[in-house]
């Protein structure tokens, strides 16, 4: 009743090809953007910004990048933390070594450096497939862990590998308050989400999906696997590198190599799988789930009034996290995005059952 496209006719190809062809969808997204860009910065508390919103935005950007690689191109990668680290440290080097280097450019150059390494570590994917590739990408992860700890030049000769980004300034405006950081991240996320959506709707996205579904058949019909796989690695590591730079500069302020360890890679992979492989919305759902769940779990015993020591609470958190992951995978292996689209399908028919 409310979600029908009755009466919405398209009169030219351009309007037929838009990302959101249904007017209700356009209104909903417009409202969401207005709330996100105008109402939230005015009303949210500092805790909400720094503990929930900024991590959610940056991690959903990283999950978006990983979804391009794992969800759309089917190459399982466990080395995402390494690419985030490369993005963060490269951006740091551009920002601190070159005086007056614009913030935006250093973030994007961080992404570009991550792209170079992404393509390099993606070359094994031309020969190795499946779970073997997943474990082989751990080579990238551990190499980056070691490199940022031992190669002094990369961290501007800091003794422990920990660096700090200092004051941030965008086109002369300072990025100090939590609301300003939030808006910077929001801008990046919106721009990249639109870019990725258009990429996967286009020819290259279809090449990726063909490689994911059946790479031998894709090669037979003329899709070059080298180009498709390496471009997936390139695009994915660019986005993940920018997300890493944002994570270090905006969320953490100062960081060390352990912030981008294997825990981070596994967390991102969780987000992508729980959110839904091969979907843009899925990256956001997954990031929201994984960001909010630990906060919820740590407050939960307090609500129930149970007196638990911090170690016991931490163990309980790990147990519930594990159970929830398995539960979600059994109940909806295609992720929250599938639940969302099933809900939209039911909404189209509402109030009729079929």
């Amino acid at each position, binding site marked *: 009743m409310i979600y029908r496209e009755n009466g919405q006719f398209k009169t030219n190809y351009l309007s037929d090809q838009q990302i959101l062809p249904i007017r209700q969808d356009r209104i909903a997204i417009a409202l969401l953007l207005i709330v996100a860009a105008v109402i939230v910065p005015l009303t949210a508390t500092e805790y909400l910004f720094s503990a929930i919103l900024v991590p959610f935005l940056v991690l959903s950007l990283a999950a978006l990048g990983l979804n391009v690689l794992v969800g759309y191109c089917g190459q399982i990668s466990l080395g995402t933390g390494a690419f985030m680290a490369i993005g963060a440290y490269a951006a740091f080097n551009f920002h601190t070594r070159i005086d007056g280097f614009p913030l935006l450019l250093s973030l994007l150059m961080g992404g570009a450096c991550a792209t170079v390494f992404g393509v390099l570590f993606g070359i094994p994917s031309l020969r190795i497939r499946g779970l073997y590739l997943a474990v082989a990408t751990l080579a990238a992860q551990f*190499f980056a862990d*070691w490199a940022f700890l031992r190669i002094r030049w990369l961290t501007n000769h800091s003794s422990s590998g920990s660096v700090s980004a200092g004051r941030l300034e965008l086109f002369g405006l300072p990025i100090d308050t939590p609301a300003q950081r939030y808006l910077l991240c929001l801008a990046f996320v919106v721009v990249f989400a639109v870019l990725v959506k258009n990429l996967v709707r286009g020819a290259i996205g279809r090449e990726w999906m063909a490689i994911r579904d059946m790479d031998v*058949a894709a090669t037979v019909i003329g899709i070059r696997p080298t180009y498709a796989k390496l471009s997936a690695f390139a695009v994915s590591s660019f986005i993940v590198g920018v997300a890493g730079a944002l994570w270090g500069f905006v969320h953490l302020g100062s960081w060390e190599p352990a912030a981008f360890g294997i825990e981070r890679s596994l967390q991102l992979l969780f987000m992508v*799988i729980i959110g839904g492989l091969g979907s843009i919305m899925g990256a956001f759902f997954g990031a929201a789930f994984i960001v909010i769940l630990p906060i919820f779990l740590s407050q939960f015993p307090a609500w129930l009034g149970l007196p638990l020591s911090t170690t016991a609470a931490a163990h309980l958190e790990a147990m519930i996290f594990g159970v929830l992951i398995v539960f979600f995978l059994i109940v909806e*292996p295609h992720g929250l995005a599938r639940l969302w689209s099933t809900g939209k399908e039911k909404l189209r028919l509402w109030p009729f059952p079929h």
Partner: protein
Amino acid sequence: MGFLLETIIGGLMAGVLYSLIALGFVLIFKASGVFNFAQGAMVLFAALAMARFAEWIPQWLGFESALLANALGFIVALALMIVVAWAVERFVLSGLVNQSGVTLLMATLGIAYFLDGFGQTLFGSEIYRLDIGIPKDPVIVADGWFEGGLLISREDVFAASIAGALVVALTVFFHSTAVGRALRAVADDHQAAQSIGIPLGRIWVIVWSIAGFVALVAGMIWGSKLGVQFSLSLVALKAFPVVILGGLTSIPGAIVGGLIIGMGEKLSEVYLGPLLGGGIEIWFAYVLALLFLLVRPQGLFGEKIIDRV
């Protein structure tokens, strides 16, 4: 020359220990097609169970013999691992039949988180001693041929012989018993095995129990080396390169892979490490496995991946 030989022997020993953990991975992957990210957590859980029960049982039953305590602790820990195997099959595997490899991988990660938290809730999160009577003093051999002789750790020799005995036992089990044959049938083709009447669920419980037993032995040996603590579950991260180098579906591959990775790790740390600033052990193992995979993408002894279009 003597030092080189010492490094190689030390590396081979370390490699055998990695293969112990890799064996668990291979067993589960062969029979249920799941890459068990939770193997490290299972090693930790089993080691914790054995350490704590070996401590508690003498207190409950009132005797002093360390050997009896360790033996009873081993048996109780084994029973616990069988319960874990049953629970995993009942609550996780049966709900995820026919899902993709990544989904199953993530499910085992969930199991890993759960086992980590559960084990430490039940048994505590401090460092526990596990003393199974392995002599820890090193022994010096061949001091006629090399000056000063070669220093070999007796603990490692013990561990290597236990691992070797385990592999022989497993190989005999798989080839000569009816259950072993059923396991091999399931590893070849789930559907065909089901159609001739092999109960898939029960086979999975058996396989995960055997993997739990292997995890217990590995946990026992690593625990007596390092002490039973949380970082034991991170040893599994060192066993991954072994698994993919040897091939995910091959038991001899786990052993050979372990030997190669162990040797390569130690040699690289001693000879390449100082040039690069040290600490290169962990990523060198992965890079070594990666290089082997570029030549043989299915691992040294793994099944060739055949795509039907």
